[in-house]
């Protein structure tokens, strides 16, 4: 790098200025346009955001007054149930790891004489109180669900859902029986959506969701993996 007195031109420094909010409105707009198509630049922004966030993380905490939360919860009280497509593509990095672990542990159990799964999803709640493993055998559209850990809440049922890649809304795969293992045939149209899809499990009233969409708490989600 030269010692010339002019301002050094460098994308990483520019990304840092963007993160610091030092760019003027026009520069910011131009930078954001570049961000849309430049993944290296996005990496730089991500790197600086993460580095600088550690500075803010060191600031002292202050408990806000309770009134802020009251107003906030009031504001969101009337908002819709989510059906936007992006949420269903949601995938936690940790869920990937869990799914791999789930597959290593339960892949062999899923496999049976008539059942050769090609896709596997592993769902575990954050507290580990419920675990569900599911697999699809595409040859005969058989779908197997194991529930090694956990039960439905008293007076409630567990319902599983498929969220196809890019889909706006989940489709019910059915209410889980009390048995820890269940095997059933699914509609070929549904089976075709499993690749790239996400499975979710929700807490529902007896008989399952009355609306065709999850009405209770979504307990866990997991992406279908190619076995």
């Amino acid at each position, binding site marked *: 790098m030269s010692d010339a007195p002019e301002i050094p031109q460098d994308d990483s*420094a520019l990304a840092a200025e963007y993160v610091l909010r030092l760019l003027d409105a026009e520069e910011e707009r131009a930078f954001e346009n570049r961000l849309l198509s430049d993944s290296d630049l996005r990496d730089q922004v991500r790197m600086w955001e993460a580095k600088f*966030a550690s500075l803010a993380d060191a600031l002292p905490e202050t408990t*806000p007054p309770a009134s802020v939360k009251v107003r906030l*919860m009031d504001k969101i009280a009337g908002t819709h149930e989510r059906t936007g497509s992006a949420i269903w593509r949601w995938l936690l*990095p940790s869920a990937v790891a869990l799914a791999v672990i789930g597959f290593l542990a339960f892949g062999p159990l899923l496999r049976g004489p008539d059942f050769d799964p090609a896709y596997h999803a592993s769902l575990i709640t954050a507290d580990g109180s419920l675990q569900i493993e599911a697999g699809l055998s595409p040859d005969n559209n058989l779908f197997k669900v194991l529930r090694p850990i956990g039960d439905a809440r008293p007076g409630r049922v567990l319902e599983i859902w498929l969220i196809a890649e890019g889909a706006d809304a989940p489709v019910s795969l059915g209410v889980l029986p009390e048995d820890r293992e269940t095997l059933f045939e699914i509609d070929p149209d549904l089976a075709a959506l499993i690749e790239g899809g996400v499975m979710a499990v929700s807490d529902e009233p007896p008989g399952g969701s009355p609306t065709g969409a999850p009405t209770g708490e979504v307990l866990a989600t997991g992406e279908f993996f190619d076995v």
Partner: protein
Amino acid sequence: MQSRAEVEHLIAKTALGDKSAFSVLYDATSAKLFGVCLHILKDRTEAEDALQDVYLRIWNKADSYAITGHSPMTWLITVARNLAIDRLRARKETAGDLDTASELPDARPGPEAAAIASSELRRFEDCLNELKSEHASAVKGAYLNGDTYLDLSERYSVPLNTMRTWLRRSLLKLKDCLSR
């Protein structure tokens, strides 16, 4: 403060519209984010309003968290800091550039609250310390106080372009240090 996995799980459920998860997320993280808003805005009422904006944004944008590639606290802090700075800038535009260097309210450091590894911070601080101290302060001032180039050039009594040259060089040095 909850673990990273727990906070991620709460954000995931918030993305699905789960209000009780959102409430738990608020309880677990709002003291941290309020601290950030207060530090930037230095005004309690404004920081409270900013905090509400922050959590409305989190409620509405939780579904896009995963694609940011950030740890959950980094994402939450980034949202809070940016919205607080938006508010700071809007205030400056409407009220002129008031000097708002009022006293920060009393705040206790959260003992277990540091969700971003303290080794990360130490590394970053070490690299900042390799810069000239006024350059390090300028970088920190931009991030933690939302200082603009104009603010910084006035503070250090240098022309704006000189300030920009300083700061860019400092940022490049910082990057070199961080990638060592």
